[in-house]
């Protein structure tokens, strides 16, 4: 029909390559390392740094599905409660005589069911907002956890169970190995597969996605179930590290996770942001907490710093489209904050 030729090769551009939010986060991590190691001689101590990594990585597993949820313009604030419920179920089943391996299986199952239930409600009743649905289940799941344990703690797990929280493979913490493997999988899943592309499509225009044959409901259901499953994995690591559990564990985890995702450059308006950004943000917040803890900065101060950092990142990532200038300005702001 025509003779026009349209270009389908894109030249590599350094400018475009470096104008990515992820570089900002890399820079932030470097800055945090530089500042912290010059203030405190203990910061770069291998044992303490890997210990700190173990501490903040447990909740980071939930970041993977949360990125996809927020790209789809949804949110899940029930993940903290899901961690608590699956942890409590695991501990009580073990204490009731079930073999530990089966108890772990039950933990994963409960987590996945919690997530599936969220997704089911959202897909079935489309007019409901995710905030309200997951707020309700957040209360519900925590309530069930309290009903099971009634403010008691449960624990005394077999010794091998502590491997999840404290174990090393060679000289690398087990949790870090697993996290990196899963992170690579998550990046590939979101950035390189049909599934990932469809997640972005849903977040960018749900109606057009449906008209294009994307199974919107099915994908939402899968992602929410995944969120529950990851919360259960968090529960295993957390319980293992603490050695026991209570119904009030993992309090406010959902907010930490959402903060990491937002700092990672995922826009709440949907359709934008990358998995890698959120993964880097996990380490930004994690090492910031660790470093500030070392130089005895009080916890309240830490909250203030993270809050400011988050505001800066959210404003910047939402204005980012406007170009380079915005970027430079924001860099200054964030530098100050850290």
């Amino acid at each position, binding site marked *: *029909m*025509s003779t026009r030729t*349209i270009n389908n090769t894109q030249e590599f551009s350094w400018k475009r390559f470096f104008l990515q939010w992820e570089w900002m986060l890399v820079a932030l991590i470097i800055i945090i390392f530089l500042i912290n190691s010059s203030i405190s001689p203990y910061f770069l101590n291998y044992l303490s740094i890997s210990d700190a990594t173990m501490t903040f990585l447990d909740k980071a597993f939930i970041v993977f599905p949360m990125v996809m949820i927020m790209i789809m313009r949804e949110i899940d604030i029930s993940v903290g409660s899901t961690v608590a419920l699956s942890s409590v179920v695991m501990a009580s089943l073990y204490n009731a005589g079930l073999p530990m391996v089966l108890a772990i299986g039950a933990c994963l199952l409960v987590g996945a069911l919690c997530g599936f239930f969220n997704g089911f409600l959202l897909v079935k009743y489309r007019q409901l907002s995710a905030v309200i649905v997951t707020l309700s289940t957040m209360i519900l799941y925590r309530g069930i956890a309290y009903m099971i344990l009634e403010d008691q703690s449960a624990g005394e797990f077999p010794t091998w169970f502590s491997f999840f929280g404290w174990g090393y493979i060679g000289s690398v913490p087990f949790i870090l190995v697993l996290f990196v493997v899963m992170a690579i999988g998550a990046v590939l899943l979101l950035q390189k597969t*049909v599934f990932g592309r469809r997640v972005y499509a849903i977040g*960018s*225009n749900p109606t057009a996605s449906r008209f*294009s044959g994307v199974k919107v409901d099915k994908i939402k259901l899968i992602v929410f179930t995944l969120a529950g499953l990851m919360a259960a994995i968090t529960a295993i690591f957390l319980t293992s590290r603490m050695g026991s559990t209570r119904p009030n564990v993992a309090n406010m985890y959902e907010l930490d996770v959402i903060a990491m995702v937002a700092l990672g450059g995922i826009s709440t308006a949907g*359709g934008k942001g990358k998995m890698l950004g959120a993964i880097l943000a996990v380490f930004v917040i994690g090492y910031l907490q660790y470093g500030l803890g070392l130089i005895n900065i009080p916890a309240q101060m830490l909250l203030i710093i993270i809050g400011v950092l988050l505001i800066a990142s959210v404003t910047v990532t939402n204005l980012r489209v406007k170009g380079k200038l915005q970027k430079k300005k924001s860099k200054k702001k964030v530098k100050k904050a850290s």
Partner: protein
Amino acid sequence: MSEYVLKLEGITKEFPGVKALDNVHFDLKAGEIHALMGENGAGKSTFIKVITGVHSPTSGEIYLNGEQVEFDNPKEAQYMGIAAIYQHVTNYPDLSVTENIFMGHEKIGKWTRRINWKQMHADAKSLLESLGSDLDPKTEMGSLSVAQQQIVEIAKALSSNAKIIIMDEPTAALTHRESEELYKITEQLRDDGVAIIFISHRFEDMYRLADRVTVLRDSQYIGCWDVDKITHDQLIVAMVGREIKQLFPEKQNQLGEEVLRVESLGQIGRFKDISFSLKRGEILGITGLVGAGRSELCQALFGIEPYDEGTVYFEGKKQVIKTPEDAIQLGIGYLPEDRQAQSLILQWEISHNISLSALTSISKKGWLAEKKEREIAKELAEKVDVKTKSIFDPASSLSGGNQQKVAVAKLLTTNVKVLIFDEPTKGVDIGAKSAIYQIIVDLAAAGYGIIMISSEMPEVIGLSDRIAVMCEGRVTRVLDKSNATQEAILEASMSKKVNNSKVG
């Protein structure tokens, strides 16, 4: 008092980097309907915004009743008696008709400072009656049809004593019959001494109504003519800048074997007992009034709202279509009416838009095949002639007509045999229209079976091999190309509606 109620001289409006208006002239007499025409992007909207005080011009003068004026904001223009009725009616759907009419100038009791509802309802009622409408002013705005909402908007303009009314594409969403009602109201307003600026893509609107026509092209003033002194061809040259020899291209399609047949298809409350068949290479036009169930029928065929009863045969085999995936799998493609909301992801690059429905085939075991994706995108974008430099440009950077071409290209990625076009030329200008017609005709010649829903009679008659006319959820008549006339279509589309279709 000057002859002209409104006169604009040498209006130029610059935005950073672009001249949206370049030395534009315009004048308007009392009791005149003045058409303003031009392609999309010619500067009509900006011009209207200058008149209504939304934008202030960079240079140039505005005279109202012979006196020079400057509007700092829309409120001032409104106060001076200028009102605009927009294409996409802007109103408060949850409020009543009365509230919509008096929004911003409610009648308030002198002493009590309370809203005088009784007075307002009565005034609303008499305003509507003066427009020949028997709408209840207490009705919720959102429950009205587009045509009725427009009448309310006109009443709103009159309630603020507007002497100049601007109508921006008022007939775009109306059916033939509803347009006719609107014409009458417009003429009545004119006879009452209101000056009207009428913007439309539809030539029939202009011929039917306007006394004079002003044409804008590429932000510039091209000219102003008396409607009866300019020929259709001259007008098109003025608008497009070149001659469009033939709006409807030569058809070369050969009808093949039957590809789709539906038998007594029905969906509760929407349509009933629909039967028709479609051959390869055939263009089947479906027309009728808005609300006759045309879109609903086609969306059911595409699995968006599944049908409740009846059977679909695809290539001779009985099939069930419950979801869009089912339809795509079979080989049915659907071009939605609202491309920005239902088809494209505007912020995405063109190539990702084109590939979206075909991701399963443009992948290996779930992994995206990006090279293949780029090749397919390039091939299809060239095939439908999208005016762009690169497939990496975002869809939002394209004009309406080119976005529509991308939406068409997107359908061709899958292995389709039947294409359903729902109002394919809605809101695109005449240049892009003829390009889209060419694509449709070429696709038919390539052997695709095509169903085209359209409210524009010339389009249906000019392209279709057969025309199915729908009315109140049923096919009232199927006309062959040879006996399809406007009259026959109109008659069939209103065969049941004669007594109860009064607009308003």
